């Protein structure tokens, strides 16, 4: 299963478009109880351009979610660089990283993570108001996103009355409401039945396409991997193109 040319295969086919995400030579290890460290991965290179849809698969424990966190500036790599929208994360302080994330990245999680005490419109509008937007335009944009994900007119509902699939639609709307150049999704369909998962995935990709966002999905699901334009496999040695099953 060892790929021959990991970095070459991880590179995009067309390098002409400006890179939304560029990671180079990322390495990460975790401390063990005995004081030693276990290497998760090393030599990870990854470039995403606008409109890209990339899926990353790999065995459990290889560090897929950790890689995602590093790409989002939520975790620091042992080595390597991450550049988002032309800005290197390494030199930024916490506030600047947060601001960059707020502006440039949308998130979709496996466990939907919506705030239970805010209604749907406000949940979706959160990235906008966190970036300093006024209330009225933020809520308008949120309602427009609700229409797009098929939950039109339900902006006043609270998350408690929604099903899992509906919650993930809200999460997708929230990830895209501020039109981020990059969407990071961690097992976005992990908590959903196959039929709902397929529809949610279609929605995510269509919405991202409409917003012009690049999408990076970390997943175990072959169904999800198959829907991506490129599928990479993460191992201890880095990223390599996955062979179709």
């Amino acid at each position: 299963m060892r790929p021959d040319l990991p970095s070459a295969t991880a590179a995009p086919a067309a390098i002409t478009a400006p890179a939304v995400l560029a990671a180079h030579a990322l390495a990460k290890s975790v401390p063990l109880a005995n004081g030693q460290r276990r290497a998760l991965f090393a030599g990870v290179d990854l470039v995403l351009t606008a409109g890209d849809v990339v899926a990353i698969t790999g065995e459990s424990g290889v560090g897929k979610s950790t890689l995602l966190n590093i790409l989002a500036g939520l975790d620091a790599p042992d080595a390597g660089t991450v550049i988002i929208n032309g800005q290197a994360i390494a030199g930024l302080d916490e506030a600047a990283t947060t601001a960059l994330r707020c502006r440039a990245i949308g998130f979709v999680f496996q466990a939907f993570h919506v705030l239970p005490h805010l209604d749907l419109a406000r949940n979706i509008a959160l990235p906008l108001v966190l970036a300093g937007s006024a209330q009225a335009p933020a809520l308008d944009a949120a309602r427009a996103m609700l229409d797009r994900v098929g939950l039109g007119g339900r902006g006043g509902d609270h998350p408690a009355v929604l099903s899992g699939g509906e919650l993930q639609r809200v999460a997708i709307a929230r990830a895209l409401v501020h039109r981020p150049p990059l969407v990071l999704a961690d097992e976005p369909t992990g908590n959903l039945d196959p039929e709902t998962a397929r529809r949610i995935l279609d929605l995510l990709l269509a919405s991202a396409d409409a917003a012009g966002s690049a999408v990076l999905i970390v997943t175990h699901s072959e169904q999800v991997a198959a829907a991506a334009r490129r599928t990479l496999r993460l191992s201890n040695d880095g990223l390599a193109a996955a062979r179709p099953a």
Partner: protein
Amino acid sequence: MTMLAPVAARWLLAGEWRAGPLRMGIAVLAIAVGVALGFAVHLVNSAALGSFGRAMASVQGRADLAVRATMPTGMDELIYPRLARLPGVAAASPVVEVAASWGQLARPGAAPRTGGRFTLLGTDVLRAMHVTPGLIGFSPGGLSGVGTRPGWQEGIIWLSPELARATGLKVGATFRFTAAGRPLALRVAGQLAASGDEARLAVIDIAEAQDLLGQIGRLQRVDLKLAEGADVAATTARIAAVLPADAMVATPEGEASRADALSRAYRVNLGMLALVALLTGGFLVWSAQSLSVARRRPQFALLAVLGLSRRGLVTQLLIEGLLLGVAGAVLGVVLGHALADLAVRNFGGDLGGGYFAGAQARLAFPALAALGFGALGLATALAGSLVPALSAARVPPALALKGLGDGVDPTRRPPAWPGLVLLSAGTGLALAPPLFGLPILAYIGMALLLAGGVALMPALARALLAPLAQAGSRYLPLDLAIRRLWGAPQAASVALSGIVASTALMVAMAVMVASFRQSVDDWLVAVLPSDLYLHLEAAEAGGITPADQARLAAVPGVAAARLQRVMSIRLQPGQPAVALMAQGGFAAVPLIGHSAGAPPAGHVPVLISEPMAWLYGWQVGDRRQLAIGGRQTPVFVAGVWRDYARQFGAIILPLADYRRITGDLSMTDAAFDLAPGADAKAVQAALAAQLPPAVRGQAQFGRPGEMRRVALQIFDRSFAVTYALEAIAILIGLVGVATSFSAQVLARMREFGMLRHVGVQKRQLLVMLALEGAGLGLVGAAAGIALGLGLALVLVDIVNPQSFHWTMDLALPWPLLAGLAAALVACAAGTAVVAGRRALGAGPVLAVRADW
């Protein structure tokens, strides 16, 4: 965004208040109660002090300076012309001043009074006009004390407005009253010009006063008006140089400080208690915010991922604390004013403490103080929010989003050193000497001890539970409960801190009051050895004459009569007067130190009270000078006795010596030993019949049992406010326990759902929660009681002697302490079960699926 966007802040706040209105409400209430108590105590104190000071100033007539006799028997009037001639003195007004009363005086715990006390002044109208114009009488219909000179008419009296109100007498009516043991009846000529609204005061002509009151050649006071531009310090020094031994200069500032000194310690102690309530409120905010933060950790993580910076998060949480604080402060100030109003109406300005007799308190609304106490509440709420906010900001969002990183790690040992450092610093401060004559450092030490005890809780809980955790239990709910408590002491410590803090304060107060009460009771038994007591109220200027004394002693059934002459004597300007008690034979007083040798020749042996020794530095064996009867008398301090009745000191000297030195043969108090078989009631009636009619209204008879009962009643009443504050602190503590428990249980819903999925029954979970609660309650009660006993020692052995200058023996109210511990354990277990039922009601499936 670096800073928090306003719209986002508003949404998040509104959501949080909607999600937990009860929890927020209780936190607001906790702050409000603290602020309200502090503000109310301050308002009542300043109202009482203000009105007392104004009443004092009225009696003084607002002279620039006054020369006062140190004893109520007065000074030689020859001092007056000497003072009037001194350079710098523009005018001098001689004054006779005696305590007087009308009708039947109130007896503690007895029938309603029909009379009252007042101050009777004798002035020379023509002199007073220049020095104390407020003490000039005015009559309706142009009949003024000055113009038409009715002041020279005999048999008339001028009343202050408050005295006229109290007696209900109109102009022309006859005022019957008793002064210096004599019955008097004078016609009311009018009211005093400007004597204020608060003082009960009457003025007659000075010559008449000296004649009627047996004060020929005597003055109690000379009021002075200083010349324009005179050097006050130099004039005061010149005056002091010509004064006899039994007179001293009294400045208005000195009088004000005397009024302040009267109740200062009492007020400071009440204020500190109020701050304790506020501190408990702060703990509650901290506990509410900590739990709310712990519960919302994944939400904060999501917000961090979405673009809320750490500073933004801290700001958000501080805004929450600020809102809690503002709401609590505003509510507290409003509540405090209402509370103070209620208290002044029902208990008087001294809240039952008995410091400001005869002054009517008036409540104001001091904006600055309101702001100050509000700000204190706000600061408490912010401080309570800051720690949880900073801890929330430290958690990495990626971890928190996965539900990890919430601090529960059984392998991590909670540190003990912060608690130990605080405890030792607290102990050091508690042992420090008084600051400005007040136990301020001891109070700060107590706060540190409290904080240290709370900080030590996680480590202590772990140490206490370690043997249990190692042994484990075959009973599943118990095993789960022990492991949870042992493994997550930090989480438990939030709930524990509330229990520990409120228990410790409660125990400290209870032990202090119990010790004090027991000591007072023992003392009462010791100082009341006779069968029957007689006391004359408002009789400082003179009581029962020798002829009447002999008649009293001869009443059938009386085996022995011990006479006493009690009066107040001023030893230092600016200090409250000391009680001088001339007793026939040394009465039984509980001595705590005495001299072995006989008094040196020419010295009068005296006993001094504990406060006297503390305030004036007198010690057993000292030779001192005492100004009695117009000259310095050498005295020898033969012993110190414990006295809870006179906080500002008392001196006992033999009656024979007193009579020899002063020539004053009257008496104000007597103790009667009854013949065997004599009926106390019958003897009392016979004694009352032998009393001269003039003093019957002032006479109070008491039997030891009844006097003890009344004294303890007064004690309980003056501690009523303390009890109330204590009850509120307990209530806040218990509410804190309840809220923190229920919040913790709700935060663990997923854990319960999982346990039910793996086959633990709902009933077993409830038992587990009850055991956890009981365990926490037990650890909290044990630590709280231990800490409380330490604080009680500080209160009993340091704060009380430093405040009130008396000592007491430690007494532990064991039944109360045991009941308290049981109540805490039951409350903690009960709350945990109630919260558990609520949490488990939703069912295990929902609990596991719950997003947060």
